[in-house]
């Protein structure tokens, strides 16, 4: 593994905590982040069976708020949603207070500039505001796009000086209920505000491991003692980026810059479900012509799960062939500790996208047998 320079790298408010907990730190998205603590395999399995705590403060939490004087209620929500809907294909207007939705930021060609979660806050006085979390490596790009689109109509407030952490796993709900009583009532993609030590924070039932869990945005001064206390709970352990990657891959979730990029459309990425009916009918989003055409006729290539049939993992960039002819490429690949076998994702020509299709993966110049597999590799355990 090449050692990137740690000069000019930012640190999250949890940096000292990571060092204290024995984290091995690496450069990631411009930050010094823990890749692992006790080991990727152990952390992965811990998260699937207990509760894993992830620092995701390097990501891009922010708020978009209408300029003062527009008032609250549904009208204000409709107004801020209309602004954001010029950039994303999802139905933001119909979100109920407290509800969140995964969507994608699109370029004019219908390619994906980032994936993000948009939340409509609870509370009458919070209408006209959206809480948005974008990817860490993409946040400057995304925020510049928002600011340009919203100029004179709404303001963007960065919240990436706060702690954003995720607690994931089957025991996360019991641990969280001790700290945020009532949060156990939330279902997947719902959130509620809390006050901790006089500081406002946001608790969302979501995450990126395929497990039930929560993400919490909290100012550092309130979050640091909270997390220290969580670490005294025997069900909780810190988890690094290594296990975050293997968990999301087993869960069939895309990683921006790998499985998604500005050339790939949401239809090719098998994310057609982010485009609700009202938006499809209106067709008023960037790249709608291409996206609606792909919805109707099918895309030329599709994201699929891939199961190598031997023990050798196939990594990102491995060619996918049938009878010596290249039909696609692996975009994420590794070993699935819970699946107990190598797992991968990639894009193949649509004609070869059916689960069970026999393919070859070119690993170090050698063709290895594999097959197209249904995603996810490990069932998702969201609280619906």
């Amino acid at each position, binding site marked *: 593994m090449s050692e990137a320079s740690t000069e000019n790298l930012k640190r999250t408010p949890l940096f000292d905590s990571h060092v204290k907990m024995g984290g091995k730190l690496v450069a990631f998205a411009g930050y010094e982040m823990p*890749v692992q603590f006790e*080991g*990727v395999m152990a952390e992965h399995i811990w998260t699937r069976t207990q509760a894993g705590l992830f620092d995701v403060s390097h990501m891009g939490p922010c708020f978009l708020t209408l300029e003062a004087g527009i008032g609250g209620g549904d009208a204000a929500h409709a107004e801020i949603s209309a602004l954001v809907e010029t950039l994303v294909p999802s139905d933001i207007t119909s979100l109920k207070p407290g509800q969140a939705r995964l969507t994608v930021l699109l370029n004019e060609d219908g390619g994906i500039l980032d994936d993000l979660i948009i939340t409509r806050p609870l509370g009458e006085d919070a209408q006209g505001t959206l809480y948005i979390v974008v990817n860490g490596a993409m946040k400057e790009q995304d925020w510049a796009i928002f600011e340009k689109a919203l100029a004179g109509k709404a303001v963007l407030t960065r919240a990436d000086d706060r702690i954003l952490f995720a607690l994931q796993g089957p025991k996360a709900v019991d641990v969280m209920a001790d700290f945020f009583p009532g949060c156990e009532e939330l279902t997947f993609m719902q959130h509620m505000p809390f006050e901790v030590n006089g500081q406002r924070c946001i608790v969302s039932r979501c995450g990126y491991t395929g497990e039930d869990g929560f993400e919490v945005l909290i100012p550092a001064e309130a979050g640091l003692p909270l997390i220290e206390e969580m670490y005294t709970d025997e069900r909780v352990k810190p988890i690094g980026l*290594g296990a975050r990657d*293997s968990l999301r891959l087993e869960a069939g979730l895309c990683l921006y810059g790998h499985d998604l990029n500005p050339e790939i459309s949401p239809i090719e990425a098998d994310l057609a479900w982010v485009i609700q009916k009202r938006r499809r009918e209106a067709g008023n989003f960037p790249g709608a012509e291409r996206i609606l055409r792909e919805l109707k006729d099918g895309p030329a290539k599709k994201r699929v799960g891939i199961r190598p049939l031997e023990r*050798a*993992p196939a990594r990102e960039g491995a060619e996918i062939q049938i009878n010596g002819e290249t039909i696609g490429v692996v975009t994420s690949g590794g*070993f699935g500790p819970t699946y107990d076998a*190598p797992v991968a994702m990639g894009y193949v020509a649509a004609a070869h996208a059916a689960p069970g299709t026999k393919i070859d993966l070119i690993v170090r110049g050698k063709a290895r047998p594999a097959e197209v597999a249904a995603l996810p590799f490990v069932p998702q355990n969201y609280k619906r």
Partner: protein
Amino acid sequence: MTTYYTKDHEWVRVEGDTGTVGITSYAAGQLGDVVYVELPEAGASLAKGDGFAVVESVKAASDVYAPISGAVLESNTGLADAPEKVSEAAESDAWFVRVKISDTAELEGLMDLAAYTEYCEGL
């Protein structure tokens, strides 16, 4: 019987003109959980310094370099079914290949245990 070590964290145990090659416990510790090891077949020829094997952890693939030149007499096929042995017994049961050494003079540039231990402490 003498064991030599490389700066890339391979070891070679020499008996006559036969060398048994593997990666060190230090390297295994750095790699983490090993899930797959790709080894050359018997008869393959190794050139000193060339990548001859690949160790895959959950996250990444790492090359292993030949500490000496020679012909592969035997590879440790047991690692195919139990790659985790590399983490547990890197310098004993989890050897990678046995090689017929073509030039014992190549051993001169390698470290002995004391020198290798000191080298690791400086990393």
